[in-house]
């Protein structure tokens, strides 16, 4: 075991880190953006999780779920655990590496500390961190709790399960490292793992299936009967033996009361302790892999903080189109951002996708496969609003991802509006093309489906929407980029994928709500203008003239809004200084 001084130092590091983490979180609440975010985050968590939980406990007496479900749930959970463990053995895994931070590696690896002490430190740190995960899992699973035990006992049950899984994964990586050191490749290990599993699980499973009578109609009538049959299946043949240890492990989580919990906890802790010992006594070299892992993690974190989600997987990408030396500078930004988006987003790919859609829809129509046609129509129709209204949130290859390069962008001989519009072009193009492809599928499946709508409407409807798509995308991107430019400090913390906490959760919710409100305000003038135009022209010249005119009004209003938005953002960008904006 570790000496007292070393243990004290390591404990100090761990506790000081946790204390520092909480202190920094509390300190930053002095900033309004975090304070407001924290309030919203707390309200959200309380409303959606804690209130129901408290009310369930305080007002409504706990009613146990049906006995079938109580018997059924632990068996399912144990079977799921077994599958997770089995997959862990089969899937490729790199060399053993315990997760240390770069600072821990710098200070602890060269320090006069035994390897076993380092392992103790890492494992205990992980088990400590899992307390928070267990509490979180208890909170979010409160609604479907199947036991009457208190939340704290269930959290303890979660902790035992999560801790053992974590230790099992570490032990697996140690075993893999031993095998790799003996020249066994990942492929060979996977094959061997499959073979072992085929024997260890497959054979008993087949045995069980042979031993178990096929389900009758009565077995499948209603959940209780299905549950009863499933329970019989899991208790037939050798399956109970295979599930014995997983069942021991999950038993505290499903304990009906405190007494049952205490009785179940002992065996579960023994399984956990056995795993701990397994890791501790698997003496393999983990240092190199730990260093590599820490470096990878640090690079990823730095990339996330810089707003670049792809930093760990950068590949050389082909030019989406030939960029000539002269011409509109906005196209240079479109070209640059399409390069960043990857190989899929080229004009050639769009043409290929369109060709596939046309061929598939034609084939479905010729073969008269109504089910297939309906499926394509529904899938394409559902994807339309998703692409239009959620696409701009995720297609961020614009100013949002380039704000970190604002200094260099501002030295270019371009006015702010040109830069802002150029930056927005790639997401506008990509989202428009994707929406057009979905519209193409809707139009092709709709055109060959007999409905009450005249063919003219079936063709002109999607065409009219297709014309409006770039305007709608542009309007939303003006909003998203506008928020990034007007509130860069907020966006920096919200977009940082390494950031967690109630305050950041609240900020994200607030941003989402703000975007929806701004979009609604942006669409309102277009909708009002179109409605008034349609009403007036319809009464004078009929709907044939009113509809296209109303549509033109929509496009004009959206166009003016986008133009005005880009000019405003251009002005803002010209005055923008990221370093002073982010100054606390």
């Amino acid at each position, binding site marked *: 075991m570790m000496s007292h001084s070393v243990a004290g130092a390591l404990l100090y590091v761990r506790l000081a880190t946790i204390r520092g983490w909480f202190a920094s979180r509390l300190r930053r609440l002095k900033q309004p953006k975090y304070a407001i975010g924290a309030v919203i985050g707390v309200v959200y968590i309380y409303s959606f999780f804690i209130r129901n939980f408290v009310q369930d406990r305080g007002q409504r007496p706990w009613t146990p779920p049906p006995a079938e479900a109580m018997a059924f749930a632990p068996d399912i959970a144990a079977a799921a655990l077994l599958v997770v463990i089995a997959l862990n053995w089969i899937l490729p895994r790199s060399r053993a590496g315990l997760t240390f931070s770069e600072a821990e590696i710098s200070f602890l690896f060269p320090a006069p500390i035994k390897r076993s002490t380092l392992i103790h430190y890492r494992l205990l740190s992980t088990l400590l961190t899992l307390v928070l995960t267990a509490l979180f899992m208890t909170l979010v699973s409160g609604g479907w709790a199947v036991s009457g035990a208190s939340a704290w006992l269930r959290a303890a049950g979660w902790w035992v399960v999560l801790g053992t899984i974590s230790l099992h994964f570490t032990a697996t990586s140690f075993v893999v490292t031993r095998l790799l050191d003996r020249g066994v490749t990942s492929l060979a290990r996977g094959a061997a793992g499959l073979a072992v599993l085929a024997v260890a699980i497959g054979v008993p499973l087949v045995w069980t299936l042979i031993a178990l009578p096929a389900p009758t109609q009565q077995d499948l009538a209603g959940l209780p009967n299905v549950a009863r049959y499933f329970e019989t299946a899991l208790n037939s043949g050798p399956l109970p033996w295979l599930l014995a240890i997983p069942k021991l492990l999950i038993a505290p989580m499903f304990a009906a009361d405190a007494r049952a919990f205490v009785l179940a906890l002992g065996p579960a802790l023994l399984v956990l302790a056995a795993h701990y010992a397994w890791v501790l006594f698997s003496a393999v070299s983990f240092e190199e892999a730990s260093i590599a892992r820490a470096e990878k993690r640090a690079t990823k974190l730095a990339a996330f903080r810089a707003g670049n989600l792809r930093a760990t997987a*950068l590949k050389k990408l082909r030019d989406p189109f030939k960029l000539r030396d002269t*011409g509109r*500078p906005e196209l*240079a930004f479109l070209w640059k951002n399409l390069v960043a988006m990857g190989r899929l987003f080229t004009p050639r790919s769009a043409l290929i996708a369109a060709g596939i859609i046309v061929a598939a829809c034609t084939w479905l129509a010729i073969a008269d496969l109504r089910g297939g046609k309906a499926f394509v129509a529904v899938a394409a129709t559902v994807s339309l609003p998703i692409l239009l209204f959620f696409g701009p949130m995720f297609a961020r290859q614009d100013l949002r991802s380039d704000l970190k390069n604002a200094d260099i962008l*501002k*030295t*270019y*001989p371009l*006015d702010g509006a040109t830069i802002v519009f150029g930056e927005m072009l790639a997401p506008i193009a990509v989202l428009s093309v994707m929406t057009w492809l979905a519209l193409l599928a809707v139009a092709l499946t709709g055109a060959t489906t007999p409905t009450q709508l005249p063919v003219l409407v079936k063709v002109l409807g999607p065409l009219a929407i297709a014309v409006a798509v770039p305007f709608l995308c542009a309007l939303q991107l003006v909003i998203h980029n506008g928020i990034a430019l007007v509130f860069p400090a907020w966006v920096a913390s919200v977009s940082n994928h390494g950031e967690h906490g109630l305050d950041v959760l609240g900020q994200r919710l607030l941003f989402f709500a703000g975007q929806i409100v701004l979009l609604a305000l942006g669409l309102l003038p277009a909708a009002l203008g179109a409605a008034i135009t349609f009403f007036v022209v319809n009464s004078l010249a009929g709907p044939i003239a009113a509809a296209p005119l109303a549509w033109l009004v929509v496009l004009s209003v959206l166009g003016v809004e986008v133009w005005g938005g880009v000019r405003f953002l251009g002005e803002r960008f010209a005055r923008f200084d990221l370093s002073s904006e982010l100054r606390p």
Partner: protein
Amino acid sequence: MIEVTGLSKVFGTFTAVRELSFAVKPGEVLGLVGPNGAGKTTTLRTIAGIIPPTTGHVSLAGHDLRAAPTDAKRALAFFTDEPRLFDYLTVRQHLNFVARLYAVPDHEAIARPLLEELEIADRLDSLPAELSRGMKQKLAIACGLLHSPRVLMFDEPLTGLDPLGIRRMKDSILKRARAGAAIILSSHLLHLLEEVCSHVLILKRGEKIADGTVAEIRARFGNGDANANLEDVFIRATGGSE
């Protein structure tokens, strides 16, 4: 070529640069020196149009930065201490992108000798992540020089370069100055300034303490020693402390 008049930059209650005026003529290399926090980088960023000045005027190649920012920036190349590159563009793609922004016709013919001079001609298809820090710096320089700027500004240009790279960088700066460019060079490496600069401007707490030719500055702060090195001069001029 570079004219700065009454330039001030205030962040909230903090004045980073106060009433700064100077000029750099074609062929001159001005060394901007000062202790940490003196306002050197803020001055350069303001002159480059990255941040707007609170008061004052900047003119680059005869174009007022406020009235005609794009014309002024077309004549400018600004090299930051940390090379800012696009993670997902290769060396070739960076040059292609910049060429389009500055409308440089037949950019490949111009880029080839530049890349050879900077010794990165064989890394055309490399991403920034595959380049060493020095090579990234060289790529940033190649991008900046592609449009043959008449105004050049360097913020700590030697950071990350190897000895040969440093030698070449000094030669390159002098070559551009001889070709008629107006250059501002900010660095803590006083021996670099001594070798390269024709003029020196000393800043402290955002204010100009002194400016003039290297000989004039030496005469003023050299305590009568005509051969006093710039380090001694700098320490005396800035009061020996930050």
